[in-house]
């Protein structure tokens, strides 16, 4: 082992139980997150084959999040399986009423510890890499394996340093940085890698912005993303429900401060980005790598199949594309900072198309309501909902009809993602808000001054 290690290598080394044949290792898992949609097959395997045995129930957390409240009997059954199991096996449960999208709720409760390992049967578990954690999605059977054994098998990924210098400016947000990373790497360019984000731009991001960035690491095919721990991380952790208190917190924080890459650590690859060159970005295609500047056009070399699905012509200015719906929500962009930014755009204005605002957790919802943001959204004519994944996976509260076109603060624009035949354009919450007002893809800068009551 060389003296200088990447941040990822430090977390990996601290959790490696044993190397396994091939490039694999047995990795200890500190936290396993189980939710109603993809958790039940894992629960069933553990219950039927292993008598419900869990490695350590205190390391598990169960969340009803994807369809809350259940929309029909079959999703109600899924939620019921999760809550019945969690109660029976002594697993911490966040149920209807104190629910939230797991990748939003887990950090806000202090359930992701800097430098820890986390698995969940959801690909956007990479969001938690913002905390210097090795957090990644697995299938239901691998989830069952982690529940049973407290560990999982991981093929050691390579590490790519994504060095982002300078500052976001000119209306570009963390979402535009995330879309920029995915566009530069391509939809599969990160395959086999952990993206280790570094640089003064990352240091200047809030934890919420780092989560937005790490959230989309999977959209480049990467195993996950990871950010160094700094004072921003530590002040976020302070006072969280499951964070240690007093002396214990200071001791923990001292250990967390070591969760940075060593100077001179060697990387397998590097991507350099100048944040000053990033601009507000919108996807035109059918994967998150197919994006263009908001002020630009659908590219002339755009993939024909994607254009056919999206019913777009090359050369079309993005800001001329008419919309049927706007959605602000999801584990990418539905935290309090996202809602504040969207509300600032919508304040004193009216939406021109059906607009749905879905907070990322009930805690976010209550905070937003303390600040009066719900009035801003509703005065603008938007629908203010309870927390859930909802429209993002096309399951409830805003599913698209075939041919409908939606601008969305989410992370996936796959064909049919938000409803069979539906078309999705990904953008930041402020661009979604401005587009909701104009009824077409639009920039906040082109809105007329709001009519103040």
């Amino acid at each position: 082992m060389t003296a200088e290690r990447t941040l990822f290598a430090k977390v990996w080394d601290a959790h490696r139980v044993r190397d396994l044949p091939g490039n694999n290792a047995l990795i200890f898992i500190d936290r396993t997150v189980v939710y109603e949609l993809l958790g039940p097959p894992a629960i069933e395997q553990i219950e039927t084959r292993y008598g419900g045995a869990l490695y350590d129930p205190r390391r598990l957390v169960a969340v009803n999040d994807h369809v809350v409240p259940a929309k029909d009997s079959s999703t109600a059954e899924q939620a019921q399986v999760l809550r019945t199991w969690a109660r029976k096996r002594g697993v911490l449960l966040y149920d209807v009423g104190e629910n939230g999208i797991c990748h939003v709720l887990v950090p806000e409760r202090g359930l992701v510890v800097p430098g820890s390992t986390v698995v969940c049967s959801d690909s956007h578990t990479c969001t938690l890499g913002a905390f210097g954690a090795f957090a990644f999605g697995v299938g239901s059977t691998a989830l069952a394996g982690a529940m049973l054994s407290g560990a999982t098998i991981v093929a050691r990924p390579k590490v790519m340093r994504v060095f982002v210098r300078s500052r976001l400016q000119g209306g570009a947000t963390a979402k535009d940085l995330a879309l920029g990373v995915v566009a530069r790497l391509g939809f599969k360019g990160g395959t086999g890698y952990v993206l280790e984000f570094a640089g003064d731009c990352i240091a200047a991001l809030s934890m919420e912005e780092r989560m937005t960035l790490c959230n989309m690491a999977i959209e480049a095919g990467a195993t996950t993303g990871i950010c160094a721990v700094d004072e921003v991380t530590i002040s976020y952790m302070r006072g969280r429900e499951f964070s240690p208190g007093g002396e214990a917190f200071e001791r923990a924080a001292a250990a967390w401060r070591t969760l940075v890459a060593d100077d001179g650590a060697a990387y397998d690859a590097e991507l350099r980005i100048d944040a000053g060159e990033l601009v507000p970005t919108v996807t035109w295609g059918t994967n998150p790598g197919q994006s263009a500047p908001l002020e630009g056009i659908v590219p002339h070399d755009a993939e024909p199949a994607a254009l056919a699905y999206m019913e777009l012509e090359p050369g079309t200015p993005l800001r001329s594309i008419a919309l049927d719906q706007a959605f602000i929500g999801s584990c990418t962009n539905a935290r309090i900072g996202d809602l504040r930014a969207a509300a600032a755009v919508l304040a004193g204005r009216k939406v021109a198309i059906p607009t749905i605002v879905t907070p990322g957790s009930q805690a976010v919802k209550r905070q937003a309501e303390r600040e009066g943001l719900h009035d801003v959204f509703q005065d603008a004519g938007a629908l203010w909902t309870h927390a859930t994944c909802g429209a993002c996976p096309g399951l409830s509260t805003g599913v698209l009809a075939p041919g409908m076109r939606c601008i969305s603060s989410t992370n996936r624009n796959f064909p049919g993602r938000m409803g069979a035949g539906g078309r999705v354009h990904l953008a930041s919450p402020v661009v979604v808000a401005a587009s909701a007002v104009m009824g077409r893809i639009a920039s906040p800068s082109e809105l007329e001054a709001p009519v103040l009551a």
Partner: protein
Amino acid sequence: MIVEGSIFPLARANVDTDQIIPTRFLGSLDLRGLGRECFSGLPGIDRLYAVHPDATIVAAGENFGAGSSREHAVWALQGRGFRAAIAPSFARIFEENAYNNGFVVCAVPPDAIDAVLAARSARIDVAAESILLDDGRTVEFKLDPLRKEFVLGGGFLAYMEAQIPEIRAWEAAKS
């Protein structure tokens, strides 16, 4: 283990899990109907099924199975009667899910996929990591040496169960 059958040629890259099994079919505990909906997120799939009704081996472009972690993608393929997939590359979680369910994934050299897509049928020798196409050509692929055991013998969970004493000892020594 030998998988033999006709090819289902999906000549496109980045076939994601929402296309293999759209999210709207995940809202149920009942996994039996998944096969019926396999690839229902792919425009024009009915025509391909009509031409290749009995195909059991999917051949596709790079990055097959991108996107979500849903193991339902593998279960849908199996429910539809597919037993293997051949592509230049697979998304990580999909590939792991395939291994854990005994679904054979063959990552072949990028320049070999056109021959596979053009073939009518193939015979995959999993242990030998080799594919024999009906035109007599052979294509090699590499399996992860550990996970290959799960494909051949099943038993991912049994393997994990057997590790528990060592994992507990490791955790005790650490704290």
